[in-house]
């Protein structure tokens, strides 16, 4: 009896292992990516839809932009995601190419009782002072002057920043760097900076979760995270001196300034752009690929997916308030695929070469 039981357990085990091994042989390889959490809401939607349509599995783990750069350089993933653009020289050095997937907005979010999304108005200076730890309470004069009609509590400001290297942080600090001389001097632009105050959270989701949880907190996330979780964003004063709300239109206004044609290696920064309608903290998010790849099958499958995203993903992107990359830029990107990407020495784009 006992032996029979052992035999059954043993057989089940063996069967499970065999299924796994056999499965590996049949199934198309999963494409593995990792990196920025900024575009994760839209990437996850695209990948889910693409999987439904084609059965191709793309596994994207949001671990932060620094993680995306590190894992693609180490070759532990097939593609990396980052929203801190790499300089053309750094790209050459590490043998990578970078191209933008989508453009999105970074918004400050707050958790103050009685304050609804878009109600609180902040100037660039006030924002920088808060993250520098110089504004300590919400009823600070600088904030009250901007919001005469709001009842602000005498509550401590808890800054929520990223705990790991992040492209969202890069875009956000790049903005603060531009608008505040104090910030420029003390902290500068970076995927991580030496935060003087606050708590650290992992990824855009982590920042959103902490702001959700800690009363009196302020953090910064990609807009989709604020919308999906009904976290109150603030209204910011832009370069033209107007208070604007984060919307797809105000992001598009910023993205319209992008001159991709003269951006070497697609290095593009879209913070503090001119225009009355413009949301001031906008950035593109990038895919990183090795110029020389090993597996032509994986390489083709990846490019096919990215092409599908440019072609069929725009509507979904706009729904989630991301700005799609314009068609002429996509053509430029695909030209660079053609010129620069090789797998096993073969050219992989255009796909017509495949039969």
């Amino acid at each position, binding site marked *: 009896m006992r032996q029979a039981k052992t035999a059954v357990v043993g057989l089940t085990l063996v069967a499970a292992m065999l299924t*796994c091994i056999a499965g*590996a042989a049949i199934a198309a390889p*999963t494409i593995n990516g990792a990196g920025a959490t900024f575009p994760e809401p839209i990437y996850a939607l695209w990948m889910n839809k693409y999987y439904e349509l084609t059965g191709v599995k793309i*596994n994207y783990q949001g671990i932060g932009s620094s993680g995306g750069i590190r894992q693609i350089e180490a*070759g532990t993933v097939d593609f990396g995601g980052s929203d801190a653009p790499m300089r053309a020289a750094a790209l050459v050095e590490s043998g990578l190419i970078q191209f933008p997937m989508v453009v999105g907005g970074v918004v400050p979010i707050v958790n103050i009782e009685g304050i609804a999304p878009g109600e609180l108005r902040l100037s660039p200076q006030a924002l920088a002072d808060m993250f520098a730890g110089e504004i300590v309470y919400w009823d600070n004069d600088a904030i009250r002057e901007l919001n005469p009609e709001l009842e602000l509590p005498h509550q401590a400001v808890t800054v929520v920043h990223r705990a790991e290297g992040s492209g969202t942080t890069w875009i956000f600090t790049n903005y603060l760097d531009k608008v505040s001389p104090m910030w420029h001097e003390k902290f500068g632009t970076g995927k991580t900076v030496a935060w003087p105050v606050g708590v650290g959270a992992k990824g855009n*989701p*982590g920042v*959103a979760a902490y702001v959700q949880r800690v009363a009196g907190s302020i953090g910064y996330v990609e807009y989709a995270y604020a919308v*999906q979780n009904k976290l109150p964003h603030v209204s910011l004063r832009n370069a033209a001196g107007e208070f604007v709300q984060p919307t797809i239109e105000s992001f598009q206004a910023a993205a319209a300034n992008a001159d991709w044609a003269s951006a070497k290696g697609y290095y593009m920064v879209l913070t503090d752009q001119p225009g009355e309608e413009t949301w001031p903290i906008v950035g593109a998010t990038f895919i990183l690929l090795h110029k020389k790849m090993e597996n032509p099958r994986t390489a083709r499958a990846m490019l096919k997916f990215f092409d599908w995203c440019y072609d069929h993903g725009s509507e979904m992107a706009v729904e989630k308030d991301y700005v799609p990359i314009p068609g002429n830029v996509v053509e430029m990107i695909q030209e660079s695929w053609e010129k620069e990407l090789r797998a096993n020495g073969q050219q992989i784009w255009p796909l017509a070469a495949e039969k």
Partner: protein
Amino acid sequence: MQPRGVAGRQFADQAMRVVMIPAALSGIAILAWILWEVMSRGAAALNWSFFTELPSPPGVEGGGLSNAILGTLLMTLLATAIGAPLGLLAGVFLAEFGPKSRIATAVRFTSNLLMGTPSIIIGVFVYALIVLRTGHFSGWAGAVALAILILPVVLRTTEDMLNLVPDELRESGLALGAPRWRVTLWIIFRAAKTGLVTGVLLAVARVSGETAPLLFTALNSFYWPETLSEPTANLTVTIFNYAMSPYADWQQKAWGASFLITIGVLVVAVLARFSLQRRAAKT
């Protein structure tokens, strides 16, 4: 001790009881509170699709964690398949072949240290050893990390359990002319079977809820674990990611996954305890 009146001593005793009993009860109450939160919030999150469907994209309600459940099961099984036999054999060495030898003392000491090594360090180690060398995160790496955690636990319980087997049994086996390995595997293992199984079960209970060693090895995945040479979905890293997300649906799923893990670990631990008690009742 200073001589004191009976009244004073009685008072000290009563005072200790007054302090002690509420403190003890509140400690127990906190532990009960945790269990209650996990059980009530977790049970509310479970439904059919939790067990059958793949995860949905962030912010989209629905979906399940079937892939993570399978991934955790597979990696735990594989880790047991690697770690338990090694631990059993190593335990045999300590108990049967020169328990007093210098090597045995060193192995015993090292295995204690290994048992006390933080699991996140095992994660860093396996990342450097396997993930960096093979060039990708994988379920295999995760299983190896878990196997390293299993090894010392099984080793120690095996040694303890084999030491409980009376020497007469060994001697009678050997007197019949049976070779040592047969005596060990056929006679001594049989005699100590319950104890050995308990040791393995306790080790499995310990690793099945581990998160830290998987973060840098198995990573996670949104798909079925069709092969273990890719990032592999698992419950604990999913709990970590989902609990740290702002999505109510994901947070609820994290509770559901916590519930499953807790129930799983408790069932294994109760099984282990039960079999030990039965064994104690028999002897």
